[in-house]
């Protein structure tokens, strides 16, 4: 057997790892694209180090208008969907509209998520007016304060529109066009469903030890704050963890 295939196989491993490590280094090399501190409302873990998986991974939790209000008040309307590349030429109420919009695949976009800002306050107001009458008083204020507030095909353009790097983070996402009505009594309208925002954030040592010390059985859950940086490729890393009392 000649050695070429053996060397090639080893090279595939080395090249793939080098590519990943250089990519990661370049992500973290320059000044961060965004730097913000989130709490246990925005970062949740279903499992801080289980017997089968000792790693600690947090998951970003975000809020979007669709949760409680109709598309009429959402920024992700027909005009925005058109700028994102969707074909919105068919009347949503027409008989063949369902198939026409169903055939359009989700598109790769960038979304802006604002933490604890005007978008959150607006969402809270709307949420309380629709949910509070049903008795779920704590639901709205305890939801994630990280709200998806804009989308664009170009992350640089999106950053120029939302320049505050301490409260707004830009992330890749998918948007699926939907032909939907909040109530069968009303006509169908176009809206967007946001999917596939990268939510998993690995917590390395020594920060992961802080999470292992958390009392998981305490009620209410023990609060914490996590300092995050997002790099040139919009990929995050943890720079600090503070456990609350």
């Amino acid at each position: 057997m000649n050695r070429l295939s053996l060397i090639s196989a080893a090279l595939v491993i080395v090249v793939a790892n080098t590519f990943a490590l250089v990519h990661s280094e370049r992500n973290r090399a320059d000044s961060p694209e965004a730097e913000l501190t989130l709490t246990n409302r925005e970062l949740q873990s279903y499992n801080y180090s289980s017997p089968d998986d000792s790693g600690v991974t947090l998951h970003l939790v975000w809020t979007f208008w669709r949760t409680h209000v109709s598309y009429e008040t959402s920024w992700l309307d027909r005009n925005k969907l058109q700028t994102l590349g969707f074909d919105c030429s068919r009347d949503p109420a027409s008989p063949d509209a369902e198939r026409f919009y169903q055939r359009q695949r989700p598109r790769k976009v960038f979304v802006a998520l604002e933490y604890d800002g005007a978008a959150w306050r607006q969402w809270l107001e709307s949420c309380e007016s629709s949910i509070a009458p049903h008795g779920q008083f704590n639901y709205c204020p305890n939801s994630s304060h990280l709200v998806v507030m804009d989308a664009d095909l170009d992350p640089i353009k999106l950053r120029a529109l939302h320049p505050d790097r301490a409260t707004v983070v830009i992330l890749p996402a998918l948007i699926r066009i939907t032909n939907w009505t909040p109530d069968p009594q009303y006509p169908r309208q176009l809206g967007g469903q946001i999917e596939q925002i990268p939510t998993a954030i690995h917590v390395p040592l020594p920060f992961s030890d802080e999470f292992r010390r958390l009392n998981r059985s305490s009620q209410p859950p023990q609060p914490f704050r996590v300092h995050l940086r997002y790099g040139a490729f919009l990929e995050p890393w943890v720079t600090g963890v503070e456990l609350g009392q």
Partner: protein
Amino acid sequence: MNPQEAADRIRVLRQELSSEEVQSVLALTPDQLSRFDDWSREKLAALAQQFDVDTSLSQKRVSWGMRIVSTLGGFALCAAVVLFFMRYWGYLNTPVQLIIVILTPLVALAGAELVARRERTRYITGLLALVAVASFILNLSVVGDIFNITSTERALLAWGAFAMLLAYRYGLRLLLALGLLLLISYAAATYTSEMGYHWLEFYDRPEHFLLLGALVFAVPFVRPHVRNLDFPPVYRLVGALVFFIAMLSLAEGGVPSYLPWDAKNIERLYEIAGLTFSAGAIWFGITRSWNGIVNTGAAFFTVFLFTRLYHWWWDWMPKYLFFALIGALGIALVLVFQRMRKKMEVPA
């Protein structure tokens, strides 16, 4: 003809020549018999020496057992490596995690190479090569997790290329099938991504897989395999399975098609195409003596036929009658196959 097929033919010939029935019509002189016996023994011994082929039926049975055990053992070892790492990786700092995950596939590769130089049958080599591929998949997944890298389809290319290199180096059919599936997924994901969609949506448009399955099926026609003689059937089987599964999913749910027609019309088109192509696969397999393609074609022909009948009859027909008709159709198909088989009989 591969070495195992050559050994099988000599073994069968030896058995036939020693039977009384053949001896009654083919009388060889003792000298001829002795010379044939010596030649066939030497030939089998040489094949066994060079390729470690099975020279008796008992050996063949044991080899099948070893193949199954080594494959299952390989999968179990892969699971053990992944689970062991997951159990302890959280207690290691990032440089140590990286060293372990990068070295593991390299060590498994070195192990496979060392064993391959000592072993002709390739059971343990196959097992270690499978562990090397699984470790490489774990490697890139963990590096992606550690640095929160946004997932891309390029990992599929690296994994597929690695599996293919090991398959060709050690003559491993399981890794060839795995490598082909990874490369097919990579090609579909790249096209999907180039179209402006998320790469993970690649399974959403099965028509990609019709083309890719046909391409994989055609590879052995373009690139003859002189060394790995048992690889062309793997290409054909993987290609045919990918092609027919894609066609079946389009026949059952026409919405994800590129064709700008009504979903029902697309489903009808692919149902007819599925029946035609699977019947064609049976015919093509018979003419070329490709058992795998005959069986795959027959299985998909039956599935396409029964799903069509289900759509026609299930709603308006009593269930007992539906199953009775399916049973009757099964008998009719057996009769058709029997007639086909009879036509292929060597004339007396």
